[in-house]
């Protein structure tokens, strides 16, 4: 009995370390994650795209934590029964296209459901349409 205890205690401690450290770097495929979280937009400049992202986030009830034009990065939080935090980045893909990427976490969980990101981009599509047509 003592032997079992002697072995199981360090095993438990080691497994706890492994699971805590594995959360620092995620194990999902980087390509898959990027594809799920990214959408490409044509013919809208960085500033208008970022403003559309802000409108989208406010439409969805977020408060902006940080916004940086140079880095084209916006982080926002929504408080409900849970805490939903999203970071959106805008990058030049080529001379005519911008890539918008969103990654979100709810409490201590990464959102890895593609449908959730599709929902986000559906709202962003509308905001970009309204920005293009200069509608408040």
């Amino acid at each position, binding site marked *: 009995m003592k032997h079992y205890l002697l072995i199981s205690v360090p095993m438990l401690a080691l497994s706890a370390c492994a699971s805590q450290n594995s959360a620092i770097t995620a194990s999902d495929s980087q390509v898959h994650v990027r594809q799920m979280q990214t959408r490409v937009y044509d013919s809208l400049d960085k500033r208008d795209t970022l403003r559309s992202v802000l409108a989208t986030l406010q439409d969805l009830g977020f*408060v902006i934590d940080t916004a940086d034009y140079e880095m084209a990065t916006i982080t926002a939080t929504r408080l409900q029964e849970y805490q*939903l935090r999203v970071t959106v980045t805008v990058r030049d893909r080529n001379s005519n296209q911008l890539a918008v990427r969103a990654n979100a976490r709810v409490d201590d969980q990464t959102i890895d459901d593609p449908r*959730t990101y599709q929902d986000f981009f559906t709202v962003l599509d509308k905001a970009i349409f309204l920005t293009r047509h200069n509608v408040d």
Partner: protein
Amino acid sequence: MRKPGLLLALLAVSSVLSSCGSTQPDYFSPSQSSVVARKMQARVYFSVEESDVMSAAAALLQDMGYSIDEVEARLGVISASKRANATNRLQAFGTLTLDSMKCALTFLMACSGNYYGEIDDVQDIRLTLVSMPNDSGDVAVRITIQRTIYDKRGRVSEQSTITDADVYESMFAKLSKAVFLEEQGI
């Protein structure tokens, strides 16, 4: 004797599997009330400079005791926060009464009334103001406000977005005054 154990094991496995298969809630689906929310949270200031609106907003936030956490002028973003008292006298009275009653009922045995700890104590208020100019020289401003309330024990008792139209109405009334003062250089 083994059957209950086996049944429990099967139940545990099936519950784990079912939780793996569950889908996440609609985090990014706009609610039906989002149009109403936008109306409540936004105002248009006609024929003003965006920089004047931003300066007026920053001054107003200072007037109201907020600390500015984030400013990005090129995107028209200001985020601010403050900690404020959240004690509700009615709630405090109710919980103290409950504690007293519990103490009276358990007279001399053990006065274990602990409702007092559940009284709302302080709240952290966070807000974002985003200005959006258009080609006609007008500036739309939208404000979103959230708060987290902590009880006397320091536990989160509520975290939510403010949906009270009067709060936004009052804030925009003050912002209108602040924009006027900004334009007048006061």
